[in-house]
């Protein structure tokens, strides 16, 4: 106890002594013979535009009215696969005192879409043997005719499914399977050449920036707490001045907003047990500094080894962030099942509880699918995870979606009981602990054990009676 206080005193003292931590901004132009007028080399506008496309898509996916709606479907597809000008930012928009700078996606970056960057591998956890891009397209089309994103017949919440899956299938996959993988090779986007002729950044600088952009963290994250980053994503007015890095009275959706897995890392870390957000952010900043320090020369093997170590830190912690979310939503789904069971036994109204169950299950499913879009095939772990969760939540009649027929309709069949399904949720949590070593463990089904263990105290002592 005293030791802990001492340690935190030292930590506070060091924090006060050092200058503000580095922002992911203002790294100098190192391209040799650069003729333009750019005064720094950081750029990830395309990634920020895709973040905004996804948050907008999520919002739109919740707008269906439970009937065929071609206009909505077209609009949804415009945000998912289109590249045309004129798409407005649907979310995040200004909220109270939290003023957002851009109202058009094109103000951040033009001609961007999600579909072109979506995981091309097969998705084993979703019926129909489709690629990642096809699954998202399928979900988007289904969302158009759902009731506020919800399909009561299957228990799908498409807004959640699309949002959580795409975060993995687009952002996470692009980073760990592309930018921080083959693009760190010596002959791929070398550092002694501009990324493209005339641009103020080198190949490696831009590759690293694009990877960072997909993480979704504000540029000044190292000067913010996890809680503050969380509040920025939630657009709390109290966080506005923290977010407005350049003090122009608006929060730029380019580099002052928190999105996607950076937001989930912050949400996980604010519980105090983990430090994913800052670990990942620090690795991005340090890696970018290393590239900058190479001063426009090709990276040596030693430098690339170091850079790959940063990349590995990023990939490992990012994967854990997703695994923590799987853990958390398996726990919420468990609680929803408990609640439903009680309501059924007491003949209560299950509609509201079922809607909540569908939402949490869809978040769980989205994150579980996202987890499988990383660089490495998860093998047996993926098989287990997909079997435990199934293609849909177990429905009130103890049925589950088994597949999709030729017309794209879901096929259901009788399955396990909801009570047995609860055990699956427990086992999902166990799988996340065993395979990914998750530590935050929100909504732990066995959470009560931890506190009790502490109360009982350790038995490790040599006391005879």
């Amino acid at each position, binding site marked *: 106890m*005293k*030791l802990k206080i001492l340690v935190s005193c030292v930590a506070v003292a060091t924090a006060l002594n050092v200058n503000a931590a580095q922002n992911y901004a203002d790294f100098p132009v190192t391209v040799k013979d650069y003729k333009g007028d750019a005064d720094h080399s950081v750029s990830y506008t395309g990634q920020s535009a895709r973040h905004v496309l996804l948050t907008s898509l999520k919002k739109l996916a919740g707008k269906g009215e439970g009937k065929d709606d071609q206009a909505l479907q077209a609009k949804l597809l415009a945000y998912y696969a289109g590249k045309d000008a004129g798409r407005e930012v649907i979310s995040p928009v200004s909220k109270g005192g939290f003023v957002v700078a851009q109202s058009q996606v094109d103000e951040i970056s033009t001609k961007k879409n999600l579909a072109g960057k979506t995981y091309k591998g097969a998705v084993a956890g979703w019926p129909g043997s489709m690629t990642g891009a096809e699954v998202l397209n399928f979900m988007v089309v289904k969302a158009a005719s759902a009731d506020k994103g919800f399909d009561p017949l299957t228990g799908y919440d498409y807004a959640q499914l699309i949002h959580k899956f795409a975060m993995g299938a687009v952002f996470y996959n692009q980073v760990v399977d592309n930018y921080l993988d083959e693009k760190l090779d010596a002959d791929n986007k070398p550092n002694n050449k501009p990324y493209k002729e005339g641009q103020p950044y080198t190949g490696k600088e831009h590759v690293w920036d694009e990877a960072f952009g997909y993480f979704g963290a504000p540029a000044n994250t190292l000067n913010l707490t996890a809680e503050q980053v969380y509040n920025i994503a939630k657009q709390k007015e109290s966080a506005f001045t923290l977010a407005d890095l350049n003090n122009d009275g608006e929060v730029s959706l380019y580099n002052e907003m928190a999105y996607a897995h950076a937001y989930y890392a912050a949400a996980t870390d604010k519980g105090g047990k983990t430090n994913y957000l800052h670990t990942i952010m620090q690795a991005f900043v340090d890696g970018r500094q290393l590239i900058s320090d190479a001063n426009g020369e090709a990276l040596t093997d030693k430098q690339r080894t170091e850079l790959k170590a940063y990349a590995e830190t990023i990939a490992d912690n990012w994967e854990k962030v997703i695994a923590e979310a799987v853990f958390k939503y398996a726990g919420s789904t468990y609680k929803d099942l*408990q609640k439903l069971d009680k309501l059924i036994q007491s003949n209560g109204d299950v509609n509201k509880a079922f809607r909540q169950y569908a939402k949490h299950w869809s978040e769980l499913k989205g994150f579980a699918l996202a987890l499988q879009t990383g660089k490495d095939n998860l093998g047996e772990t993926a098989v287990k995870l997909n079997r435990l969760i199934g293609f849909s939540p177990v429905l009130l009649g103890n049925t589950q979606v088994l597949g999709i027929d030729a017309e794209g309709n879901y096929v259901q069949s009788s399955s396990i*009981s909801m*009570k*047995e399904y*609860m*055990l699956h949720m*427990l*086992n999902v949590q*166990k799988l996340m602990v065993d395979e990914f070593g998750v530590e935050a463990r929100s909504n732990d089904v*066995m*959470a*009560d*054990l*931890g506190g*009790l*263990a502490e*109360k*009982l*105290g*350790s*038995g*490790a*002592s*040599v*006391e*005879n*009676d």
Partner: protein
Amino acid sequence: MFESLVISYVQDLWIALTDPRKRVFWGYLLISLLIAICWIKWVSPDRGVRVKTHLFNRKVWWSASARADYAIFLLNRLAFLFIAPVLLTQLVVAQWLFESLYQWIGHRPILGESWSDMQVMICFTLFYFLLDDFFRFYLHKLLHEVPWLWAFHKVHHSARTLTPITVFRAHPVEGVLFSLRTALVQGIAMGVFVFFFGGRVDLVTVLGASIFAFMFNVTGSNLRHSHIALRYGKALEKWLISPAQHQIHHSTNPIHFDKNYGVVLALWDRLFGSLVISQPGQDIEFGLRREVTYREQNLLYIYMQPFIESFNIFLSKVRKREKSIAKN
């Protein structure tokens, strides 16, 4: 590295004396002292003795045996800084049991929904106390009856004078067994109760200690290892083990061997036929046997001899088996 080791060692010693969950918490020692004074002044048959010389006798507190206790206490604590992290914890047991119950039953029936939180807490606290007290009794019985275990438990019984610190006089191997026992007991209690009762399970505590442990300790638990033969009287000693009864357990008189294994409840000894009630004016010699043997308080001997003895037991068993195989 070394510095942090020293810090955690000192902290560990400090906790032993200041945590009300520990037997030698200063408050319990103080209460035991007060009880001892009252006992000697007003109840005990040898009322004539001077309280001060009887309680603070150098022959007790600074005997070769007591000095060995102190050294063993300090050495074991140090050893456990390294041993404790690799031992099985109650959380691992509890999680395993929770999951296994789920697999066996196939679902999770939630019980006691009409009970108040307090009722659930009382049930858990009582269950944990009974389970713990029984496991302590039973492991103690095994320590006496299984030859190679006895080789290690003899360390505790080689004490010639008893002081509250004698509670720590144990071989580290025994310490490992005690730790496993606690992990098992706590793990079982937690796993079962949280599985069936969910988040309402909690321990009824006083000063952070389980109420039963607290009651046991404020009623003079530290006098068990002392020469104050505090008796409860025949009626109560059938239910609760008094300090005098535990002192019988440490007796050199063969008629007292393998008796009174219990900690709090006398019930277990009664069930297994090992209970002995204390007699007024009992005068007991402590130790393994009457004759004092050379080296019996030597630390190297205390730590190494059990290994030699248990190894010999193992060897003789192997030989016996070889013989019987040869015969057939």
